[in-house]
């Protein structure tokens, strides 16, 4: 897919996430919209995987460690062909498959780890990356974290061990949208300087624009062979990205859009999902 197609796809994902949020009364819209471009670049450009063989031993592993972004991931996995898009009709229904966070892998193809409790995805991803080294496989492991998630001590425990192990096939992307549930992530805990923190733990760290599709395509397809250091990208993003009245407004961490807001959002995105 070329860059225009990926950008168009990202708009469609955003529109679908918004209407699903409204229909199913599912929160975390702002957090979903901030990471849509990252997910699209990963699943439609960079990751080596085959949706028909979701447990293939050599696949790249992508872990949505910020599990509350699941509503966006569920749309992306369906569009990528891991399961029929019609399955999403049961979203939020009693007895359905889709919780507000990713379930254990056996419940849904394409999911690598059940997240939602923050700070779990990176340690598990590190374990997967180390297993590749033991088995002499070439797969990459990419974990998408939120800035608020970097409050968790286990993130830094894993960062230290990854640094000590000089594990080259592990990549972190931090969806740095500057907010966490109840306030600015810079104010709640001392997050800055975020890139330098990762460097201090033995990682290569680079800051990027987390909505620049070309930059995201490049990092998601980057080969990680023969590296002796884990790699972190601090992706500067906007919470609620793509819809003017949601952008950088933390109310949309929990707010559910009404019918009129859904229409306005779709109009802005130029998409009828």
């Amino acid at each position, binding site marked *: 897919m070329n860059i225009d197609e990926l950008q168009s796809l990202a708009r469609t994902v955003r529109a679908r996430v918004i209407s699903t949020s409204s229909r199913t009364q599912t929160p975390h819209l702002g957090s979903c919209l901030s990471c849509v471009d990252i997910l699209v670049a990963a699943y439609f450009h960079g990751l080596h995987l085959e949706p028909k063989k979701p447990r293939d031993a050599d696949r790249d592993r992508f872990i949505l460690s910020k599990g509350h972004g699941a509503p966006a991931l569920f749309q992306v996995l369906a569009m990528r062909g891991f399961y029929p898009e019609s399955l999403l009709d049961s979203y939020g229904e009693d007895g359905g498959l889709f919780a507000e966070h990713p379930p254990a892998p056996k419940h849904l193809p394409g999911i690598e*780890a059940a997240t939602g409790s923050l700070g*779990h995805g990176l*340690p*598990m991803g590190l374990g997967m990356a180390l*297993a590749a080294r033991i088995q002499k496989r070439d797969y990459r492991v990419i974990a998408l974290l939120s800035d608020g998630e970097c409050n968790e001590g*286990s993130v830094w425990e894993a960062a230290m061990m990854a640094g000590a192990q000089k594990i080259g096939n592990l990549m972190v992307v931090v969806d740095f949208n500057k907010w966490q549930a109840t306030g600015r992530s810079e104010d709640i805990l001392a997050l800055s300087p975020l890139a330098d923190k990762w460097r201090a733990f033995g990682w290569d760290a680079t800051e990027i624009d987390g909505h620049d599709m070309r930059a995201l395509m490049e990092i998601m397809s980057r080969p990680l062979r023969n590296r002796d250091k884990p790699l972190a990208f601090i992706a500067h993003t906007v919470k609620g990205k793509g819809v003017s009245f949601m952008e950088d407004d933390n109310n949309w961490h929990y707010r559910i859009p009404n019918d009129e807001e859904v229409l306005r959002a779709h109009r802005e995105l130029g998409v009828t999902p």
Partner: protein
Amino acid sequence: MRNAFADEITKLGMADPRVVLLSGDIGNKLFDKFKQHNEERFFNCGVAEANMMGVAAGMALSGQRPVIYTITPFTTTRCYEQIRVDACYHNAPVIIVGTGSGLSYAELGPTHHSCEDLAIMRVLPNLTVLAPADEVELRLCLRAALELDGPTYMRIGKKGEPVNHSTPPAFAIGRAITVRDGTDACLISTGTVLAVATGAADILAAQGIRARVESFHTVKPLDQDTLSEVFERFAVVGVVEEHSRIGGLGGAVAEWLAARGGARGRLVSFGTSDEFMPEIGSQHYARARYGLTAKNIAGKLADVLHHSGL
């Protein structure tokens, strides 16, 4: 026991390339042999147990069979959410070993005691909970746990525990081992305190009371067949564990008994009290403080037998 663990995991590691050993910065020199043979499969994860548990789960989901080893509180209470979510919810075949369980580290103080681990671990879905009595059972438990497709918790002792089995007994997870036959009462014991239970049976034998002794190396799944048999056959069944009387094997048996609508046998629980031990002392001293001695157990059992008119 820890030396037997190191020896057995070294053998298993050489035979099975899936085996990975993760240590939380303990076991100085204990794993030198494992490292010598399987250097790329040994990880000192440092004093960072939450990460260690997540790493193990990630490895298990990628085809390895990780075995985690550190002191019991640090591999249970310290990283409980990682056990619950990463290991148990994913049903990842991780073996979590807690060393120095119960009151093994009595003299180190309550930070190093573990008298609540069986309670919090057995409530977790998918988790098998083991407490071998000695190094013979430990080796059997470890081998059997490696055959499982889900996570296992195994609490073990420290060092110098008496060996109860002169030859390896028939073994299956979830099936208790009859250590001694008896006709008058029964003691079911889990973990290294088994030697105390057999000591109590010796004292009872001298009084003409023949007590059967069962080693419940598996706390979950509970061996309901053996429980049904002994609670119908004997007027008194004592549960012996180096663990709180709340929530451990005694608790599991009480739940089972209540749900069953009772039985002929009366349950008597021996274990630690609902407190952090306020004094320092040896394991021997600490056991005695909570009545985990052969003499106390034998005395209580004999009392109950007499009062039940048998």
